[in-house]
């Protein structure tokens, strides 16, 4: 008997995805798809919630974790939190998309369909506990991503972005499955739970190490970390901006879900092997992302490099804790905290960028100069989100940084201290380019070719307003009361409680 309660969110989402497609077929008002989609997202949140608090509910029975299909699909605290995050991110992404899609000739119904399909894939990833499910889920996240990146069909940049994204994506995917095949060959299993208890004789084999290496490196594509980060700026710049928002949050988080699941559920006992790898990748990503971002003049590209750097920050606790052989639960929790907060602030940042871009029709910082004059409210939000990304209290980002530092320092060895110091220096560098945006929009004068009068009359689309409102409130609220996030991450990391 299948535990239908456990997979109810997936069922609802699957139905929603199809419903959106169907809606597109029967209506002419294309944004109906968005409405149907959002309703479906809300509906999917309900079982996620009831699953989380099932024991406290009268009509509900069964406790987490709920294992399905021979342990290949598990609904536990961690997966619920991540699913909630995905759904929230998709929700905001849809809100960001509506006005954008209507501003030009886009295929709208298919757009929402693909976005929700990608979300579906991400949600499946969150629960997958074997490589087959994980890979299929991953592909459902990636495939629509490739397509959506090219959604500005007439725009060469968008075409190019789609092709670049696709090619890098598939070779990373090939590497990943190569790794999976090697792991399978040496251990004989696809299940994370079985891999976690693989005997030492297996673990010591070079093939095992190589397979693990390939799997991790394959995932770096999705999270845009070194070495598969190269696509990020071009794709961010070329894609339709709401898609970029989704890629930078939903898709990236899906990558991290893969990372987290593989690292902590499949290879927790081999942390000494993958720890140093991620330690190196973290440092390389944050340093490279931050340094290159300093030179960027396009705000979306800048966010692309910022995304690389942030991936480095998120990997830091992984690497440090694992390399040092410390308690992994805290690093796990820290990454979840970072992911949740990053999602909120990055979506907010993209919201502002979309709203601004809708007015100036450009993402070049020079054109955004003096935005303060023609859109003061938006500029305040922009400053807020970028400063949050930079980790300045009392905006939510500080807690993410704190959690990251805390997890690295808490490791208590040179693996942790050194990466914490490097991360600290990096966060200073990061401020340089985040503040560059603020400086340009707030301190600089409006360039001659921009007409502030005209721009100030353009209204903000209501959907954008809602998206910005939600993210703004969250960024402020979570900045002041980060305990909420802390508790969520604690809830999520309960699955590791007895592991070590």
């Amino acid at each position: 008997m299948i535990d239908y309660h456990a997979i109810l969110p997936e069922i609802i989402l699957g139905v929603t995805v199809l419903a959106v497609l169907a809606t597109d077929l029967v209506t002419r008002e294309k944004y109906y798809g968005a409405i149907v989609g959002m309703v479906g997202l809300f509906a999917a949140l309900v079982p996620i919630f009831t699953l989380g608090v099932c024991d406290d509910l009268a009509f509900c029975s069964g406790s987490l974790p709920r294992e399905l299909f021979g342990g290949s699909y598990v609904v536990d605290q961690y997966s619920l939190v991540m699913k909630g995050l995905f759904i929230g991110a998709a929700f905001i992404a849809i809100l960001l998309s509506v006005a954008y899609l209507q501003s030009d000739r886009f295929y709208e119904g298919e757009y929402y369909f693909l976005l929700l399909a990608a979300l579906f894939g991400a949600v499946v990833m969150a629960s997958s506990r074997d490589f087959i499910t994980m890979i299929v889920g991953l592909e459902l996240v990636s495939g629509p991503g490739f397509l959506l990146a090219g959604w500005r069909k007439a725009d060469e940049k968008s075409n190019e972005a789609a092709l670049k994204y696709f090619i890098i994506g598939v070779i990373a995917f090939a590497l990943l499955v190569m790794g999976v095949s090697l792991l399978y060959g040496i251990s004989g299993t696809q299940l994370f739970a079985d891999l976690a208890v693989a005997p030492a004789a297996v673990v010591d084999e070079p093939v095992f190490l190589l397979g693990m290496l390939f799997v991790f490196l394959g995932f770096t594509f999705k999270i845009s970390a070194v070495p598969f980060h190269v696509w990020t700026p071009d794709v961010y710049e070329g894609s339709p901006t709401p898609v970029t928002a989704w890629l930078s949050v939903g898709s990236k988080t899906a990558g991290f879900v893969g990372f987290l699941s593989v690292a902590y559920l499949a290879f927790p006992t081999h942390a000494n092997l993958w720890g140093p790898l991620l330690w190196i990748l973290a440092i390389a990503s944050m340093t490279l992302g931050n340094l290159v971002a300093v030179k960027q003049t396009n705000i979306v590209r800048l966010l692309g490099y910022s995304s690389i750097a942030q991936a480095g920050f998120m990997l830091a606790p992984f690497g440090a804790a694992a390399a040092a052989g410390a308690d992994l639960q805290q690093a796990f929790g820290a990454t979840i905290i970072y992911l949740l907060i990053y999602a909120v602030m990055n979506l907010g940042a993209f919201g502002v960028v979309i709203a601004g871009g809708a007015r100036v029709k450009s993402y070049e910082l020079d054109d955004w100069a003096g935005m303060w004059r023609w859109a003061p409210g938006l500029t305040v939000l922009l400053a807020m989100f970028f400063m949050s990304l930079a980790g300045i209290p009392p905006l939510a980002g500080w807690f993410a940084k704190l959690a990251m530092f805390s997890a690295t320092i808490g490791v208590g060895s040179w693996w942790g201290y050194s990466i914490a110091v490097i991360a600290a220096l990096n966060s200073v560098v990061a401020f340089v380019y985040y503040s560059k945006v603020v400086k340009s929009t707030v301190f600089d004068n409006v360039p001659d070719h921009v007409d502030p009068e005209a721009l100030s009359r353009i209204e903000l689309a209501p959907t954008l307003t809602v998206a910005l409102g939600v993210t703004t409130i969250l960024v402020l609220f979570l900045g002041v009361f980060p305990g909420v996030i802390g508790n969520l991450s604690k809830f999520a990391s309960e699955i590791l409680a007895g592991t070590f």
Partner: protein
Amino acid sequence: MEWFDSGWGLSLVVFLPLVGALVLAAIPRANEAAMKWVALVTAIVTFVVSIVLAMRFDYGAAADIQFGTNLPWIDAISANYHIGIDGISLPLVVLSTFITLLVVIYSWEHWPEPHNPKLLLALVMILATGMTGTFVALDLILFFVFFEIVLLPMYFMIGIWGDTSMRVVPVVNWEIELRLYASIKFFLFTLFGSAFMLLGFLALYFKSGDVGPNTFDILQLSELGRAGVFTGAFAFWVFAALFLGFAVKVPMWPLHTWLPDAHTAAPTIGSVILAAILLKLGTYGFIRILIPILPDEARRWAWFIGVLAVIGIIYGSLACLAQNDVKRLIAYSSVGHMGFVMLGVATMTDIGINAAIIGMVAHGLITGLLFFIAGSMAHRYHTRDMNRLGGQMLLMPKMGVLLGFAAMASLGLPSLAGFWGEFMSLLASFNPLDGLSLGLFRTLMVLASIGTVMTAGYMLWMLRSVNFGEPAAEWLDDHNLHDVDKFEWMAWAPLVVMTIAIGIYPKIVLGATNDAVVNLVNKAFGG
């Protein structure tokens, strides 16, 4: 008043300005009068509440934490909303609310360009929250958050309303608007320091787990520090990290270079707040966090702090002597004055730390006044170049007298507030904490005393160039040059009065601080 004493009173002082900022944000752009009134009322109420705190404060138990509360805040890392004040923080809290009030009064009719009272006042209010919050926080994470909250408003203040003249950055030869250079420099320096500070905090947190539950609580960590939990290489590195964080903020030589630029570029009220309060966050950190938590390490580093402090004194004074820019001169003078404060801290004695606190308060009042005046002068003359000024006593006699007063106070004239901190620092460095090098500290004492001479030198030099002589022809028919106006009087007179009052009756500050400091030093260094 039970509710008042159990945390609410203090929370009011901290968060009322934030409420004010929110209200300000809701006021339509056109309604400037409402903005001013909201800001003024908020500032007054906050000040009054802080005065009520000061009046209800039990001076007999100044060493104890009062008006405090300890509520859970972030469970995940056991960071709490733990606030409270003792005799050390009380004067600084009152100073913050006081300066904020004066700044609001001053702004009433002195708006820097671009004209945007709403944002400016809101930023002032946010600053107020950050400043008072830092002084009341007893949890490292809370402290960190408040410590950082002040960065953004100040960054915007400098960046938006700052000096737009071009500055050629030496060495790398960039030409950049001063406000842009100064704002980012200010931020990066502080961020650089505070990033390491945060690492230090976290290290303490995890180390505290060795002997009990992990904690960020400053008081508990102080207990642990006294018990010798933090030692060896660990203590060394943590100290280094925290030192960096606080020293940048103070600022100590050679981390001070952001200060002249920030002060010069900032609008008047920004300079005032920066000088009067923000610099104190660093020294307060030394006293509240570094010394109690890492006493042995503090003792080990004392000579280093002392040497840097005295270098700061001499160096700041010499730099002042070469200045032609009034605001830069005052800014460099801050480096010197904070050097005295740090010299007091470096002695690690009750006298030295008392001296540091009264020095902080005095510097807040006096340098605040100086920056007010310098700002008003720059506003009238449209230049800060001392070579072009002169004869102010003829052009604006009252302004001249006030400038003279402030300069005298700044050079540490006895009977004015500035004297106590300077003199007591010197006093303390003759007999520093047991175990510190007497020879070194006595040498430092002599060098620092020479610093007082140079302080007098540049202050008199400034008075000579600005106040005295015959005014240059360009000013004679300048109708901008009206003397001190109503709002300036209202903002400055309290500073003058307090400078004299503390000078004559230092118990206003020492009455609160002494017991607390003696207790602190006794606990940290075992009597």
